[in-house]
């Protein structure tokens, strides 16, 4: 089967369109990052993101078709991210996709952004890795799923407070490092010792699953205050062990993610683990996951970095699976923040 699907992704601060054939073969992928537009605010501003998507999306979609050497008439469906994400941003993608589908008579497919991240991790595999455990970890999400197929996901655990990427952002702020915190903390961590400070690793008390990074963030704060919860927080330039804090913090996050994921794999008796989302770019996470995998005899699969962050290839890819399953949508297709 070689359906050609146009995918559209506008859930956050990337405007993306891609054409994928047969669910795996990437004919084109265009990603326009808005990062420069949000940089002065230190994070994504929803209204600015929505307007930027509105301005850029048509041109991005045209470019994706042009680079694929196709016209709208050559497509078999239009797939679009419907949830979760920033509602104003999602609506730009959904209404554009509806317009394209209505104007051409093509089927319309709504795609769940997180499930698409999981699918992205499978697109470069030679054979389908199902059933498997999937860890999705990014600035806005930290969750573990059991995936039976590209279309069947059961949520096993998620974060009780902060997403892993957000914990990086907040510790970066304490250490005087720029946003986004993932890359900046990791870069400083390379100069420090990951075993210098024994930060806590959260583990659910009842033996169940779940992530929590709020306690770790507070432990970093108390460490910076010299172990005195009531002392003032020192300015970043007065912190003498910044690299050790960065390295020990990063190690604590990675240990929590790795331990919880392998515990879930053990409980569910699954031998394959997919890791997806922006934090899947983290070097230490990739190393530790791979090391534990070879110790435990489990296969750990990461997407290429370009498919860890938001993109439309994964939307077109999972959209193909949905189309094959007959799960197309009507004109009442709506977006949802969660």
């Amino acid at each position: 089967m070689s359906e050609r699907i146009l995918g559209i992704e506008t859930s956050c601060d990337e405007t993306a369109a891609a054409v994928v054939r047969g669910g795996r073969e990437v004919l084109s992928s265009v990603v326009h990052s808005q990062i420069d537009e949000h940089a002065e605010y230190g994070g994504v501003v929803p209204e600015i993101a929505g307007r930027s998507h509105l301005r850029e999306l048509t041109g991005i979609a045209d470019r994706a078709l042009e680079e694929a050497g196709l016209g709208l008439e050559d497509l078999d469906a239009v797939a679009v991210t419907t949830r979760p994400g920033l509602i104003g941003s999602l609506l730009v993608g959904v209404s554009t996709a509806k317009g394209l589908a209505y104007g051409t008579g093509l089927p319309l497919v709504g795609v769940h952004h997180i499930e698409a991240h999981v699918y992205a991790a499978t697109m470069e595999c030679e054979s389908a890795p199902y059933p498997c455990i999937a860890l999705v970890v990014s600035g806005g999400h930290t969750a573990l799923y059991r995936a039976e197929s590209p279309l069947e996901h059961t949520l096993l655990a998620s974060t009780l407070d902060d997403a892993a990427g957000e914990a990086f952002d907040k510790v970066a702020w304490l250490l005087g490092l720029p946003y986004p915190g993932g890359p900046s903390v990791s870069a400083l961590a390379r100069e420090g010792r990951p075993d210098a400070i024994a930060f806590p690793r959260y583990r659910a008390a009842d033996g169940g699953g779940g992530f929590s990074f709020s306690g770790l963030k507070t432990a970093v704060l108390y460490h910076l205050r010299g172990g005195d919860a009531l002392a003032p927080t020192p300015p970043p330039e007065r912190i003498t062990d910044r690299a050790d804090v960065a390295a020990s913090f990063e190690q604590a996050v990675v240990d929590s993610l790795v331990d919880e994921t392998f515990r879930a794999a053990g409980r569910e008796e699954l031998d394959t683990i997919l890791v997806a989302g922006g934090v899947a770019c983290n070097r230490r996470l990739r190393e530790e996951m791979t090391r534990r995998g070879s110790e435990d005899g489990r296969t750990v699969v990461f997407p290429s970095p370009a498919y860890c962050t938001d993109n439309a290839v994964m939307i077109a890819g999972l959209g193909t699976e949905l189309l094959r399953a007959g799960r197309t949508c009507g004109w009442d297709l709506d977006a949802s923040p969660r």
Partner: protein
Amino acid sequence: MAPEDDLVRTFLCRSPEETRVLGRSLGAVLEGGTVLALHGDLGSGKTCFTGGVALGLGIEDPVTSPTFALLATYEGRLPLQHFDAWMEGRERAFLADGGADCLAGEGVAVVEWAERVEEWLPRPYLRAVLEHRGETERAVRLSVVGEGARGASLRACLAALEARGGALEGPAAGGIP
């Protein structure tokens, strides 16, 4: 002392669970149209307290940090709008661009890091200052800021909360040693 601080109730929470319970007690008595401004350091329990408020509003979905999305909406006895002004430039841009309308809704608006966007908050509003007192201990100081038609009902919420027990100090205490 400023007139707006004439009524301060201070509660001591010895664990995250107690912080959540205090939030739940408050959530149970809040009326529609209330803005609750949360002040406090990283790790002082703002999201935990908000999780309790959500429980008190009859919201079943777990409340997680709103930092990434800036605003999370939950449905319960009253809708809850959960804001986060941690990145203040971003929050100001958001409020200036229509986000402030959500503060004047029919439900309850909780704003974390509210000290960074104070001038945007419609008065009167409830303020909760969360302070580190120890590894897991937090002091929560609740007060009504500003005058207006709704001031009396906000003060009644604080009185109801105090009647449930737990307030360390009464009117005009202003803080704890």
